[in-house]
């Protein structure tokens, strides 16, 4: 959609004047900053001792990828809510039992549903989520193609 807008904008002004370039540049910067701030953060400093560095790595990657069910847009590691702390303990225990990332994610999805993971499995209910953007991109390309051919 944005591509379309920029194209249309460029077409109307016939050429990319320096003013136009500046505007497009500013928009890009704003968008990239917005994208950066969406990154989930690590702010918690609970201590989870590990004897095995591989398990430690798995633990931290999991609590980074798993979502806090109570807070709407935070991962487990970025949240200090009681439920997040309980789930971190649960993940910690499962990691120490030697469970794999897939097993732990499945364990939590069984209880909390797909909401708990940031990359839900591809299934009928999540198709729009996974392929919706691609479909929109395809649609925009088709429309751009038609408009260009007309001219």
């Amino acid at each position, binding site marked *: 959609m944005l591509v379309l807008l920029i194209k249309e904008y460029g077409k109307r002004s016939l050429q990319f004047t320096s003013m136009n370039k500046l505007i497009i540049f500013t928009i890009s910067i704003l968008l990239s900053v917005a994208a950066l701030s969406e990154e989930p953060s690590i702010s918690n400093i609970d201590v989870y001792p590990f004897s095995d560095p591989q398990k430690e790595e798995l633990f931290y990657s999991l609590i980074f990828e798993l979502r806090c069910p109570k807070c709407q847009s935070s991962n487990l590691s970025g949240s200090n809510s009681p439920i997040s702390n309980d789930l971190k303990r649960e993940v910690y225990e499962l990691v120490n039992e030697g469970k794999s990332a897939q097993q732990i994610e499945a364990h939590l999805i069984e209880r909390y549903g797909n*909401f708990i993971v940031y990359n839900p499995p591809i299934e009928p209910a999540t198709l729009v989520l996974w392929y919706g953007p691609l479909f929109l991109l395809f649609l925009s390309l088709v429309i751009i193609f038609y408009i260009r051919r007309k001219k």
Partner: protein
Amino acid sequence: MNKIIDIAPLIIFVALILVLLTFLSEKEDQLESVLIDSTFPEFSIASLKDPKRNLSKKDISELPALINVWATWCIACRIEHPFLMDLKKNSVLKIYGLNYKDEREKALDLLKRDGDPYEFSIYDFDGRLAIDLGVYGAPETFFIDENGVIRERHVGVIDKRVWEEKFAIYLDE
């Protein structure tokens, strides 16, 4: 045809905004209940009233039953408390409590003061059974049928309307 193509981006944009608005503005931030139709999880946790008594799934013996997640720090739980007392008085259905991440003293005081609608309360201080039930807040209420299968779950205050819409139907079966 060309005209349609010309305004297609606008139409798609408006459609997208409408779809996002409807889905994102849903007030109830409720998660899906994946545990419906699965059996109630096993547990082994102390009783609220008697720390020495260990409770397990076998102790939830009178089925069908309600499992109500509550805590003294949960304001909404106090709102539904009178309804649960009513239910205990007027329904054959037994209610079992899951006291969630609470202080024992405070919880016992509340039951003494406002009445105890529960057959017993499980003292889930660590929230372990709560995780197995996919609980993410209080109050939450589960309905278990006579085979020990979770049939219904309600997140939030349970009142007459919720009771009739979500739970009463199972008792007529």
